[in-house]
C-alpha cells in the first residue's frame, strides 16, 4: 500500500489537481514555512529545481513521496489529544494527514481490538522498522516498576521502549507525553514522565498543550512526511513554528493589557467589554503556544477569546504553577501570618539581644571613662 504516493492517494479520494495545489499551499502555511527548510537538500530525496516556490516544492514532494506509517501509543492520558485531532475541522490538514498517513496502530481509532490489534502493531513495527513515526499520547509512569499503566499485561515503559526502538522519530502530543501533564501534578504518585525524559537516542518533538493544538501535531507529522526531517525546535523540543511566540504576544486582548484595562472578575463590566484577563490569572505572557493565532475549530476561538484566562497548558508543570486564577506575577506561596510573625519575633529577639549587649558595651565604656 505505501507504494502509492500521497498525490495518488489524494487523487483516488477525489481531490482535483487544483485542490491539490491549494492543499500544498495550505500545508506550507500550516507548517509556517516561508522558505524551503535548510536541511531539505540532505534529508529529502526529491529533486527541486532552482526558483521553485515553497508551494511547488511541497506539491512536488507530495507527488513523489509515499505515505508515512504511524504508530500511535496512548498511556496515562484522556485521549483528548486524539479527540482533538479527529475533531480537527480543517479538512485540508485532517484529510491530508490522516488520510494520507497509514495509521497502523491507534488504540482509540483502530477498528480491531485485543490480541488482533496488538499483532497488527507488531507486524507494522517489523515491516516499517526504522521508517515509522511514533506518536505518543499520555505520560509514562515509572514508579513501582511501571505497574500503574499496563496494556495487555505489559507496562507502558516496556511498550514505549519497544516501539521507540524502530521509530524514525517520536512525536509526543499533549502535555502529558511531553512534560508529564496532569498525571505528574504534585504529588505525582505514579512518578509520571514525559517521553523525552526516558528516551534520549531518538529525535523527539514535543507538541504540548492540553490538548495539543491538532494543527500543530498534524503540521509536524506532515513536515516529516514531506521533507523527511523534523521542524526547527526550541529548548523544550517544541517546533518553533507553533511555539515561537507567547499567547500574550498574539492575543486579541493585548491592546487592553497595554492600555491597562483589565477585567477584575468574570462578570464585571471589563469582562463584558473584552478587557485583558491578566488580573484573573492569565498565563499568556509565559505560555508559548499558537492558540492565539491558529485557534481552535477552524480558527473559531480560543480560551482567552471566549473569556477564560490562559492556563499555560503548553508549559511544563502548569498544574503546579500557582493558582489558575491567581495573577501570574504573584508569588507562589503566601507566607502565613504565623510564619511572618515568627520571623518578626526572631528579628525582634535578635534585635533585643543586640540592644542589650550594646547597652552593656555602652555602660562598660562609660564606666572606663
Amino acid at each position, binding site marked *: 500500500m505505501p507504494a502509492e504516493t500521497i498525490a495518488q492517494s489524494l487523487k483516488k479520494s477525489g481531490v482535483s489537481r487544483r485542490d491539490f495545489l491549494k492543499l500544498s499551499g495550505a500545508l506550507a502555511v500550516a507548517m509556517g514555512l516561508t522558505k524551503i527548510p535548510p536541511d531539505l537538500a540532505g534529508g529529502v530525496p526529491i529533486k527541486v529545481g532552482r526558483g521553485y516556490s515553497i508551494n511547488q516544492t511541497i506539491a512536488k514532494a507530495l507527488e513523489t513521496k509515499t505515505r508515512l506509517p504511524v504508530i500511535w501509543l496512548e498511556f496515562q492520558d484522556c485521549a483528548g489529544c486524539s479527540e482533538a485531532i479527529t475533531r480537527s475541522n480543517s479538512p485540508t490538514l485532517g484529510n491530508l494527514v490522516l488520510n494520507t498517513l497509514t495509521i497502523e496502530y491507534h488504540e482509540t481509532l483502530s477498528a480491531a481490538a485485543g490480541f488482533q490489534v496488538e499483532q497488527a502493531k507488531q507486524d507494522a513495527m517489523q515491516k516499517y522498522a526504522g521508517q515509522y513515526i511514533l506518536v505518543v499520547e499520555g505520560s509514562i509512569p515509572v514508579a513501582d516498576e511501571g505497574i500503574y499503566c499496563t496494556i495487555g499485561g505489559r507496562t507502558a515503559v516496556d511498550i514505549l521502549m519497544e516501539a521507540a526502538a524502530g521509530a524514525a522519530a517520536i512525536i509526543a502530543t499533549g502535555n502529558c507525553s511531553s512534560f508529564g501533564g496532569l498525571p505528574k501534578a504534585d504529588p505525582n504518585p505514579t512518578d509520571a514522565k514525559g517521553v523525552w525524559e526516558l528516551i534520549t537516542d531518538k529525535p523527539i518533538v514535543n507538541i504540548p498543550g492540553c490538548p495539543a493544538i491538532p494543527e500543530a501535531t498534524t503540521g509536524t507529522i506532515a513536515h516529516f512526511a514531506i521533507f523527511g526531517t523534523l521542524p526547527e525546535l526550541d529548548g523544550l523540543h517544541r517546533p518553533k513554528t507553533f511555539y515561537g511566540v507567547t499567547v500574550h504576544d498574539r492575543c486579541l486582548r493585548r491592546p487592553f493589557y*497595554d*492600555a491597562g484595562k483589565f477585567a477584575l472578575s468574570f462578570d464585571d463590566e471589563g469582562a463584558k467589554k473584552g478587557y485583558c484577563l491578566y488580573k484573573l490569572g492569565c498565563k499568556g505572557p509565559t505560555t508559548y503556544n499558537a492558540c492565539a493565532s491558529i485557534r481552535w475549530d477552524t480558527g473559531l476561538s480560543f480560551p482567552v477569546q471566549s473569556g477564560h484566562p490562559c492556563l499555560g497548558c503548553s508549559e511544563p508543570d502548569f498544574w503546579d504553577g500557582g493558582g489558575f486564577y491567581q495573577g501570574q506575577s504573584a508569588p507562589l506561596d503566601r*507566607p502565613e501570618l504565623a510564619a511572618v510573625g515568627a520571623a518578626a519575633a526572631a528579628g525582634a529577639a535578635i*534585635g533585643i539581644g*543586640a*540592644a542589650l549587649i550594646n547597652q552593656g558595651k555602652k555602660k562598660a565604656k562609660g564606666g572606663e571613662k
Partner: protein
Amino acid sequence: MNWNSVLEFARGPFFYAALLIFVAGMIYRLVSVIGLGWSKDHVPAKGSKTGGVVISFLKGILIWPFIPWVKNTFSRNPLIYIGGGLFHLGLFVVIFLGAAHMLAWKSLLGFGWATLPLPIVDWLAAVGIVGMLILLINRIINPVLKLISGPAEYLAWLFVFLPMITGYALTHHLGPRYEVMYSFHMISVDVLLIWIPLSRISHFIFYFFSRAIHGQEFGKRGVKA
C-alpha cells in the same frame, strides 16, 4: 535547564524565604536601634516640635527638596537631585501602581487597588532606570561620592538596579525568553529582599526617624525645618 522550574523556585520557596528574612532583618534593625536607648530632652522648646515634624515630613515627602531655587544647592549638584528624584518616582509608581506588582501585593496582603495603564508605568520605569544610571554616573564622577562610596554602595546600587532592568526587559520581551527573564527578575528581587536589611537600602525605615528628628530639632528652636 528548565527555566520554568527555576522560575517556580524563585517565585516559590526562594521568595518565601527571602520575604521572611527581610521581615526578620528589618525588625532586628529597628529593635536594635531603638533598643540603644533614647535620652529625654529637658530643654524647654521655643517653637512647636510637632509642627516642626509635620513641616519636615511635608518638605521631605513632597517635592520641597526638588524645587531648585528653594535650597540654592540645585546648581551645585543637580545630578543627585534629578537622578534621585526620578529614580524614587519611577520606583514607587512601578512598585505600587504597576498591574503586575499590584497583583503580587494583592496575593500577599489580600487586597488590591487600581493600577495605571501600562504605557505610563512603562515610561516611569524607564525614567527610574535612567535615574539610577544618572546616580551611578554621579557616584563615579563626583569627587565626594567617589570618596564615600565603597563596595557596599555599589552593591546596593546593583541589587536595586537588577530587578528594575530585568523587570523592564521582561515587560518588553527583550533578551532571553520571558520565563528566563522572569526568573532573573524574581531571583534579583529575592536577593534584594535579603540584601535590604544588611545594607543602606533600609533607609526607607530610618528615613522616618531622621526626618522626625530633623523636624523636632528645628521645630524646638522655632526655625522652619
